[in-house]
């Protein structure tokens, strides 16, 4: 298979504009004749649904939760980047583009990333028009903060609830279209399959989570905006329902899966404290604007932090990376914290934690200034740990957070299946091997508000699409396959819960394919997971009936796909014999333990093709070429 990214010709700055002009248009009167399905109501899905409906398309939108407003985007804390240069500190579209390419360790497409940087400014304009209460200066202008991997201040924020406010903006735009009958909204539906007819994506199969019915819906094109998959690690910062099911089922129908091993481990999360724990909580990266990361200089130091004098503290990020200090990119910060703990400098009862200390910032700016910036995060920390972070340093440790990998898409955000578009965290497109903070919100909204409305029009206008409904036999077949799969799971009648399988899967994967990876360990993990899968299909226990509200069944179906997907992740990680961004293969490191890329052999996207239940997936590559930035060893010193 030849992967064609369909990158427009011309100078980098002109590509998107030229492309928009060249894309065929659907005339206004014809738009209402096209029906588009959007799965997911996070930033990407809600913004896409609203914008497509505003243009006149008929849209049907689906999500797992009871309301579109609950999508996991709601939890994003710190902020959203935009190259506005409001601070007069030297920012520009090119600088945002450059920072993002470099932050991703040169494993993303130049053209996509440049477009993202261009559109970033439109997002802020639109969001302000929607009434999003971004933080402001005394003069009434928008305020900014800094995020990792950048030396300018370009992050816009609404306290520690930026994702919430952006999502509520997109949700209200979506609500307006629902009220106008341009969007039909289906809550509590979980996607189980994509229906292909003549090679085109023509609809979906979902389970109605309230009634248990298997339903199918037909359309002229399908948009997936179903978010990321790092919940595969069991403990992650993602919400409980985050899954790989939607994208994995699309993969099984022929969409290639790109860079599945690129998963981001976020440096500042509340550490693990017990086996019963169900998730990990992020403490926003924005805290590194004012918080200083340190460990005691002596290993196994059991003193409380206030007893450790300044001279006996090692501010290791500031020491190792003086240019960026505490604001190095996430992969770098996470690995440093892990290294310190591995060498015995960790703190707290588990010794798997480092301090994030606000003492200096509180002394400098006063408690109320800190409270205004981060109040809700401090409160969240205290609720969970019972410790007051105004008085004591926070304890933090890295945790799985984001998936840069996702379904492969071309410049139009279309997957290798015609008519199947993929937006937001669910695609692989813009962040390479490591995403910079405050760029996921930017990407989700760029995809939904400003890219898909153009590119899907180009597809619909230039493709011949047969009229059909979900009475077509392909829909009935797909519905039956989903029902059969559910019945097979229910009838196992074993003795172990899906939660328990998931917990074990997560542990195996975290040890083998987390922050540091090693080939032997990964191969062992492949065997362990194969055995675990075997046991899953023999010993899974799902109480209750499939034709009712059944959360055990929902969980089991997600875990079933995680078990399969884990193999793909490991395969991808083993095959990429280099280190880059978040993918650190211990065999490939610089003398300072930084990732060592192999541009000669791996300067490409790896995109995997499903070949069947019992055959190995096929690896395809999309070479990456860098014409506007120079491939170099990343340095944050």
């Amino acid at each position, binding site marked *: 298979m030849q992967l064609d990214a369909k990158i427009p010709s011309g100078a980098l700055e002109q590509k998107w504009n030229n492309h928009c002009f060249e894309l065929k248009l659907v005339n206004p009167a014809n738009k209402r004749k096209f029906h588009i399905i959007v799965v997911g109501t996070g930033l990407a899905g809600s913004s896409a649904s609203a914008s497509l409906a505003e243009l006149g398309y008929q849209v049907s939108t689906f999500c797992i939760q009871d309301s579109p407003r609950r999508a*996991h985007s*709601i939890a994003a804390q710190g902020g959203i980047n935009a190259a506005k240069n409001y601070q007069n500190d030297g920012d520009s579209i090119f600088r945002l583009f450059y920072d993002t390419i470099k932050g991703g360790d040169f494993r993303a497409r130049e053209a996509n990333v440049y477009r993202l940087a261009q559109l970033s400014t*439109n997002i802020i304009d*639109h969001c302000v028009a*929607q009434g999003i209460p971004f933080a402001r200066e005394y003069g009434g202008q928008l305020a900014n903060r800094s995020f990792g991997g950048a030396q300018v201040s370009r992050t816009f924020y609404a*306290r520690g609830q930026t994702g*919430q406010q952006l999502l509520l903006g997109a949700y209200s735009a979506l*609500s307006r279209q629902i009220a106008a009958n341009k969007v039909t909204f289906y809550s509590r539906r979980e996607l189980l399959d994509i229906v292909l007819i003549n090679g085109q994506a023509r609809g979906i199969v979902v389970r109605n989570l309230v009634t248990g019915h298997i339903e199918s819906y037909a359309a002229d094109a399908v948009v997936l905006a179903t978010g990321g998959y790092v919940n595969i690690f069991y403990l992650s910062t993602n919400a409980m329902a985050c899954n790989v099911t939607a994208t994995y089922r699309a993969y099984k129908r022929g969409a290639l899966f790109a860079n599945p091993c690129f998963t981001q481990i976020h440096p500042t999360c509340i550490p693990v404290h017990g086996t019963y724990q169900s998730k990990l909580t992020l403490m926003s990266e924005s805290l590194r604007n004012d918080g200083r990361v340190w460990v005691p200089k002596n290993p196994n130091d059991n003193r409380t932090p206030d007893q450790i004098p300044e001279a006996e503290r090692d501010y290791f990020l500031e020491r190792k990376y003086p240019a960026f200090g505490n604001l190095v990119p996430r992969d770098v910060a996470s690995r440093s914290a892990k290294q310190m703990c591995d060498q015995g400098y960790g703190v707290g009862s588990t010794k798997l934690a480092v301090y994030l200390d606000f003492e200096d910032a509180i002394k400098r700016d006063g408690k109320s200034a800190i409270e205004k910036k981060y109040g809700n995060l401090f409160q969240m920390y205290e609720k969970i740990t*019972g410790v007051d972070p105004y008085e004591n340093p926070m304890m933090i440790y890295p945790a799985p957070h984001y998936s840069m990998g996702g379904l492969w898409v071309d410049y139009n955000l279309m997957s290798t299946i015609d008519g199947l578009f993929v937006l937001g965290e669910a695609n692989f497109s813009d962040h390479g091997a490591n995403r910079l903070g405050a760029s996921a919100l930017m990407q989700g909204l760029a995809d939904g508000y400003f890219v898909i409305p153009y590119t899907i029009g180009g597809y619909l206008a230039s493709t011949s699409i047969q009229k059909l409904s979900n009475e077509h036999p392909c829909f009935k077949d797909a519905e039956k396959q989903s029902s059969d799969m559910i019945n097979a799971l229910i009838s196992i009648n074993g003795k172990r819960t899906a939660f328990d399988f998931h917990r074990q899967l997560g542990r195996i994967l975290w040890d083998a394919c987390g922050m540091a990876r090693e080939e032997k360990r990964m191969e062992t993990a492949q065997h362990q997971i194969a055995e675990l899968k075997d046991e899953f299909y023999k010993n899974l*226990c799902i109480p209750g009936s499939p034709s009712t509200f059944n959360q055990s069944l929902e969980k089991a179906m997600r875990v079933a796909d995680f078990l399969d997907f884990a193999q793909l992740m490991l395969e991808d990680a083993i095959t990429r014999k280099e280190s880059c961004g978040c993918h650190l293969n211990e065999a490939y490191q610089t003398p300072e333990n930084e990732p060592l890329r192999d541009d000669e052999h791996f300067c490409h996207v790896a995109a995997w093709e499903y070949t069947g239940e019992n055959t190995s997936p096929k690896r395809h590559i999309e070479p990456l070429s860098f014409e506007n930035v120079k491939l170099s060893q990343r340095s944050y010193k």
Partner: protein
Amino acid sequence: MNTINLFLKIWRQPGPNMQGNFEIYEAKDISTEMSFLEMIDVVNEQLTLNGKEPIAFDHDCREGICGMCGAMVNGYAHGQEKGTTLCQLHMRHFSDHDTIVIEPWRARAFPIIKDLVVDRSAFDRIIQSGGYISVNTGGAPDANSILIDQRAVESAMDAAACIGCGACVAACPNASAMLFMSAKVSHLALLPQGRPEAAKRVIAMLNQMNTLGFGNCSNEAECEAACPKSISITHIARMNREFFKASFFSDEK
């Protein structure tokens, strides 16, 4: 690490419009570090292994922001701790041998789906009736061309922090949605972008609320006490002012 043993008296109801009743379960060896939902997870694992159906409850982010979780705990929405969602409530606030009574939100507008899970789509319908600023994507002016007083934005943000969990309705003796609705009206009314539609919005949203089976506000202030985001009832007062302005000084009906 401390552990405690508890009795849970929990509402079980197999489906919508079906008979429900309280059942009692033991929750043993519960670490006080656990969150309330993790405690229910433990009980659910036990129930499952004993061949029983686990307790259905809504949850997702488990960090107090998605608004998915919620139940009455000993008669308090999200439990007795101030400014806390159920997922943020930790077991260190309970003592050994406590009996905890757990019920779903009770309101005509929020029918029960199963056990602790209720249907809150009425909230979405309130927002659909006008909880937005009518701008299409594209064509917005530069973001800094609209200057907004920092204090106005801060107050708007206080209101916009609402997570739509429904605790205000569950806590209100009249099952009124006034706090929820006023939070949205207030957020948008405080910002210059929201002014053009302010009159239309408040009238449409109030009309919609009245058709959905929510009760009226009789100033009990229980909503404010229960709100996990501590949203103030001053927003209800602001909404009332907006409503009077709209009724007397605009053509909106």
